């Protein structure tokens, strides 16, 4: 094991995280996927846009590791470049929804007057199924990578906001916050220094799950043809394109599907690992 706790002391975050073999494997797998996608220009064996009529629908083999699509383009190279788009969207949504969710949750949890209207708004937002709201928003914003990130961030912000609000309500009643108020700390200082710092664990855990959900949602939107521009390869658009060749060349959808599933599974395991390592009391055998 890479990290172990020294005798007699509390195990560290990393020791707890890496003590679970499934989490360790998930971290390694995810790091490899990210590295391959980031280094796509160096790793990819071919130009992802280069067409070849002769190679059309070639099965996986020595020339084309994961086969060639209907335009004779190398599936492995496209998979790596598409991964950059899917991962960027997942990360972008996790970051943006966390920032917006923290702002809404802190305000609702800290200022009693804002609590009721903001909480009802969050309830209303959460009444819309993810993909349905995302479809409606993308149809209005238009299908670019940035717009898909904005649309999915709007969809997932309430999840973070709800967690931040609930945690803020607990923290603001604790003696050290009362002490900070008595010492004359400003509201902003209390919110960010005393409250936010102490509720980061559940936010990071939820953001990891949102990363995974956003990748699934993006794939769903692209599959439906209402996501990013089909000319930009993402794992979802690859499945959508390969769909019409399902009977002749199922490998066109098998590999992007596996890429999404493995990445999402790895992220979910990492999220579970974070939750257990950051606050072992939250480990619920789920």
């Amino acid at each position, binding site marked *: 094991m890479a990290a172990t706790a020294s005798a007699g002391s509390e195990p560290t975050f990393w020791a707890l995280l890496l003590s679970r073999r499934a989490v360790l494997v998930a971290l390694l797998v995810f790091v490899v996927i990210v590295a391959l996608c980031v280094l796509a220009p160096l790793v990819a064996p071919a130009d992802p846009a280069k067409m070849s009529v002769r190679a059309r629908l070639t099965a996986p083999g020595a020339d084309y590791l994961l086969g060639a699509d209907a335009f004779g383009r190398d599936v492995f190279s496209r998979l790596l470049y598409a991964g950059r788009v899917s991962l960027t969207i997942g990360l972008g949504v996790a970051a943006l929804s966390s920032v917006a969710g923290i702002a809404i949750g802190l305000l609702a949890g800290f200022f009693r007057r804002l609590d009721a209207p903001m909480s009802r708004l969050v309830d209303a937002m959460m009444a819309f199924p993810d993909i349905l709201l995302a479809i409606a928003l993308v149809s209005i914003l238009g299908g670019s990578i940035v717009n898909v990130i904005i649309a999915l961030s709007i969809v997932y912000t309430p999840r973070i906001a709800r967690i931040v609000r609930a945690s803020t309500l607990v923290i603001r009643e604790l003696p050290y916050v009362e002490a900070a108020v008595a010492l004359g700390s400003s509201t902003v200082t209390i919110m960010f220094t005393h409250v936010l710092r102490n509720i980061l664990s559940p936010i990071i855990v939820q953001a990891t799950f949102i990363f995974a959900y956003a990748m699934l949602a993006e794939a769903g939107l692209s599959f439906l043809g209402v996501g990013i521009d089909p000319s930009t390869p993402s794992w979802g658009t690859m499945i959508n394109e390969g769909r019409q060749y399902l009977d002749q060349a199922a490998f066109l959808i098998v590999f992007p599907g596996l890429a*999404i*599933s493995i990445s999402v599974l790895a992220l*979910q395991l990492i999220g579970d690992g974070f939750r257990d390592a950051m606050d072992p009391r939250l480990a619920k055998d789920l």
Partner: protein
Amino acid sequence: MTRYVLKRLVGMLVVIFLVLTIAFVIVRLAPGDPAALMLGPEATPEEAAELRTQLGLDRPIAVQYFAFVSRAVQGDLGTSLFFRQPVTEVLAGRAEPTIFLSLFSLLFALIIATPIGIYAAYRRGSFLDQAAITTAMLAASVPSFWTGLMFQRYLATDLGWFPASGYGGPDASFLDRMGYLILPSIVLGIVNSALILRFTRASMLDILGEDYVRTARSKGMGEARVVLRHALKNAAIPIITVVGLTFALLVSGAVVTERVFNIPGMGNLVVSAVLRRDYPVIQGTLIVVATVYVLINLITDLLYLLVDKRVKY
């Protein structure tokens, strides 16, 4: 209890009002002139202006908003730009496959996930328990449309066990139509079973550690009776909660599953509406689905009162 029910009803009305507001804002943000979209590319600016007046689109935004809300609460969700029919009629015509797809997949998920969840909790730490948790996590990670395409190719096209797509012709009987929903329901059920399995297992683990379960065992009660009669009964509340929660997952899943299997349901309708820029249909679907979600949550909350007499509000 009456006070609690009234409080929940008021809360629900507020949320539905906000749902209407969000749906109104989303469509108001849509690019383009709705009147020009309704009339098509050949319409003259004068015709578009006349229709704008007829539809009240030239009035102040606040007036439009109040008119929209007052019509919506009376069940008028506007007119589809593509079908030229009231949105409620268009949605009602597409509701059957979506409702049955959701119900069948929920049933499938409950039949699969509940016994496995109970058994996994009972045999905590065993190989089956580990296998159940891993499979559930995997099921939640695989895109439902991908599973759908794989099943369609191998189980429907290659093996011919199920119809590959569609919903039967116009003359298809009810049973024939339901036959087309079996494979899509299994696909959608797999995704939902992951959440139900994890919740069932977690609630059963909590309950199996309770004193009254230990007492029942110490009195010599058989294991099957302890688990099924005492533990399962008390684990019902979290399971009901998760069934309520899966509704949103079901609808999201139905949107893509209907597209994969070419089922003419509300999910397929909304995707087509996006491609046709039929904003009233998008708006109407959002309102109907969100309202049903809010109602289901209210019903599940009220069911607690019936299932567990210890719950007091």
